[in-house]
């Protein structure tokens, strides 16, 4: 039935985490940084679901559902903040955000 070992899923998840981190580090635009954060959250979800495959309580999947809801809330808040930043600075490059006064 389960020919694929658990470690393969964990390596895939580690790849998603590292590429999300790399995207947060190297991109200048704030929307790219949000995409990288979504990738990292997906890596965590993949780990949780993989660990709960053989668990009849399904605790891992319940955690993953909570994590998805938190990701949706985070995306909504982050994008409305990004809209405000764009109206204030006329740019969504993170390097241009060099003042804290409003």
């Amino acid at each position, binding site marked *: 039935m389960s020919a694929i070992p658990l*470690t393969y899923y964990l*390596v895939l998840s580690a790849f998603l985490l590292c590429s999300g981190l790399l*995207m947060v580090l190297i991109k200048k635009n704030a929307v790219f940084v949000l995409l990288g954060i979504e990738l990292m959250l997906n890596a965590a979800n993949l780990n949780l*679901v993989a660990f709960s*495959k053989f668990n009849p309580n399904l605790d891992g999947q319940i955690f993953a559902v909570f994590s998805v809801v938190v990701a949706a809330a985070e995306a909504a808040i982050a994008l409305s903040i990004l809209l405000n930043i764009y109206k204030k600075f006329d740019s969504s490059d993170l390097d241009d955000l060099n003042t804290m006064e409003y």
Partner: protein
Amino acid sequence: MKMEIVDILFAFFGAMVVLPVIYMLITRNIIRAAFALVISLLGIAAIYVLLNAELMAVVQILIYAGGIIVLLIFGIMLTKRVSDEGVVSEHRNVIIGSALATILLGLLTWGIFQSGLVWEGEPNTVDQVRTIGISFMTDYLLSFEVIAFLLLVALVGASYLAKRSGNI
């Protein structure tokens, strides 16, 4: 080792997750990156199906590929004029960032293969939607209510933030 259909499916959907992510890393166009992320998220949903997690696969398609991506594309289109010069983003700190991410990936992969984690027992065959629903209403009731309130507060806060920016 004999190739089974599950191995081929895992390889296919793993490539469907990995290749768009690599494309997202090298492209400068934000719209293309957002649509590549859609393909990657659908691949993750397929991998959830391979992991016997049908509910999570449906949630992934509905909320990530349906909701969050639409939000992100709205965010791109409201902050940039897509038709003008193309929505591009520069890179910076490429070398040190790649070095850090590669070292972290190597360490994680080494640790994962070193740990020798395996699944034990039998794969669960319970009715997932029923089990998760019962857990939400019994063991995780407080967490469920708190997360519902968090979502409400986040939506109210997001609409308030977006409205205030229009008045000032």
